[in-house]
């Protein structure tokens, strides 16, 4: 047996229900409360109804409830709060890819034949800590011995990829800004989004506020002007500015997975998982390339091979845009655009909601929010809605999305997990 053997699931798996909490900053809610919200919505989404007793096991993605909330060992607490004791509940930690990997663990558990019905989800409650301590906590997903001592932060490492990408390919800060504009436009159509306004709207409300206070009107002609203003859009880690970064978020998401042979008990519109891939990668300084994530390329190759599809077949994709540069890199690593073309393609509108290759119709992590342990499964929920024609005002391709992909990155590329979905 070699690693080259084509990998297949020995049993089909489908998503048959999906739900998420609103994403945002919710002082009064802990992660278990957020998860209950997601679970209640998921239960309501199961077309033929769900008796919760049918759930056999739970896989819960969470990066660091320990540091964010002072709560370790989260999974059994969530099982208890959902009324699902004494079922096995397992916490999965792969930084920001925690729930993408939890989803994969759930899929593998069903494919193994052990279970028929599994709950996969994720949660993070980040807003209790001040920004500086959130920065420190997220940085722990990079190398504490050789990256953090150099003063690197999470946005800092992605910013390094950005300067490398700019130098190598001529990518411009304006390309990053166009991605922020696009993701805010999509997020404004998503009632679950944390930053549910377009950048145009953010700009206009600041103009209105200045007027109210009798201050001179800000000089912005349009949203790009606004994004170039160092006061309105300050640098976080150059060239990444505030509007290039996903926010600090609280939220939870979960999907109900069922073996394909029992899916019809729950719905006549299942979303089948036809490809799953996962890879691991090194710290950026020891990577072969500074403009690509090797783990993402590995995960994508596995998922495409398993699904028997190519990048051309993907109708929409949710990719891990923790920072706008990450969306550029993702769109290249996944094979949607040639290396170096991701920023240009996005700036030309190719990835817009009604572009040739819609990316992050949900608003992405950038606008929808990024409760890190919930993001991977929240991506799967967007795909579920789009593929079932239930995405409302942000519905892509007139509801005809037969093949879709999600791409979830942990840390700065240490983990990447890719899934491919099909509606038959």
């Amino acid at each position, binding site marked *: 047996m070699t690693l080259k053997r084509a990998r297949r699931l020995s049993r089909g798996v489908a998503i048959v229900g999906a739900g998420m909490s609103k994403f945002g900053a919710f002082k009064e809610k802990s992660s278990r409360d957020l998860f209950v919200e997601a679970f209640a919505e998921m239960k309501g989404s199961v077309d033929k109804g769900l008796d919760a007793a049918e759930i056999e096991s739970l896989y819960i993605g969470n990066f660091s409830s320990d540091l964010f909330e002072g709560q370790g060992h989260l999974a059994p607490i969530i099982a208890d709060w959902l009324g699902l004791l004494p079922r096995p509940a397992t916490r999965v930690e792969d930084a920001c890819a925690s729930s993408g990997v939890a989803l994969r663990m759930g899929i593998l558990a069903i494919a193994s034949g052990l279970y028929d019905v599994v709950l996969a989800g994720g949660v993070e409650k980040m807003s209790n800590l001040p*920004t*500086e*301590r959130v*920065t*420190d906590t997220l*940085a722990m997903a990079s*190398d*504490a*011995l*050789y*990256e*953090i*001592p*150099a*003063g*690197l*932060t999470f*946005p*800092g490492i992605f*910013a*390094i*990829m*950005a*300067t*490398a990408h700019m*130098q190598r390919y001529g990518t411009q800060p304006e390309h990053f800004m166009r991605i922020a504009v696009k993701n805010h436009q999509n997020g404004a159509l998503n009632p679950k989004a944390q930053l549910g306004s377009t950048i145009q709207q953010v700009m206009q409300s600041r103009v209105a506020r200045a007027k109210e206070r009798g201050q001179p009107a800000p000089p912005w002609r349009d949203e790009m002007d606004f994004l170039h203003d160092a006061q309105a859009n*300050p*640098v*976080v*880690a*150059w*060239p*990444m500015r505030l509007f290039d970064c996903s926010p600090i978020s609280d939220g939870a998401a979960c999907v109900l997975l069922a073996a394909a042979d029992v899916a019809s008990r729950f719905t006549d519109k299942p979303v089948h998982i036809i490809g799953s891939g996962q890879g691991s990668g090194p*710290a*950026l*300084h*020891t990577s072969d390339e*500074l403009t690509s994530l090797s783990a993402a390329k590995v995960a994508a190759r596995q998922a495409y091979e398993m699904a028997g599809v190519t990048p051309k077949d993907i109708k929409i994709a949710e990719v891990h845009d923790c920072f706008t540069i990450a969306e550029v890199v993702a769109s290249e690593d996944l094979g949607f655009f040639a290396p170096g073309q991701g920023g240009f393609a996005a700036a030309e509108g190719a990835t817009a909601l009604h572009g040739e290759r819609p990316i992050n119709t949900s608003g992405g992590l950038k606008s929808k929010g990024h409760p890190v342990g919930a993001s991977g499964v929240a991506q799967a929920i967007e795909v579920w809605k789009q593929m079932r024609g239930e995405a409302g005002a942000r519905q892509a391709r007139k509801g005809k999305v037969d093949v879709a992909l999600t791409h979830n990155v942990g840390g700065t590329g240490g983990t990447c997990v890719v899934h491919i979905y099909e509606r038959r």
Partner: protein
Amino acid sequence: MAERAFTADSFYTYLREGKLMAARCAQCGALHLPPRPLCNRCQSLELSWVQLQGKGKLAAYTAIAVAPGFMAAQGYGRDKPYCTGIVELEEGPRISARIAGVDAAQPERIAIGTAVRIVFPGDPKGPGDQQGAAMPVLTFTA
């Protein structure tokens, strides 16, 4: 004399002594920076310390304005950004490091490819390691 263990503790102890040290694999010849006790190319445990010259060029960089706690405690932040980047050494390996001798307030003027050399002892006020002692900060200057 027995080699020091191929740990971060040894790496930073050498740095305090004014030496940038990497580990060379005796079996496949790979040069590892940071050092490691097992060659990740061939799994060999036979390594030896090699001193690097500490000269290289800036492979990519950023100027950080939202600083982590230990940098903020030293006054770095929005009003005082700092440059950090990845240095490609003449011997081949790359490493993350603080970059001095450039204007972090004008990051668009910092050039990838700029020649840099290591400075000792670097900034002594790094983050605390697991024992609570501050690690020195690997620092290069343009």
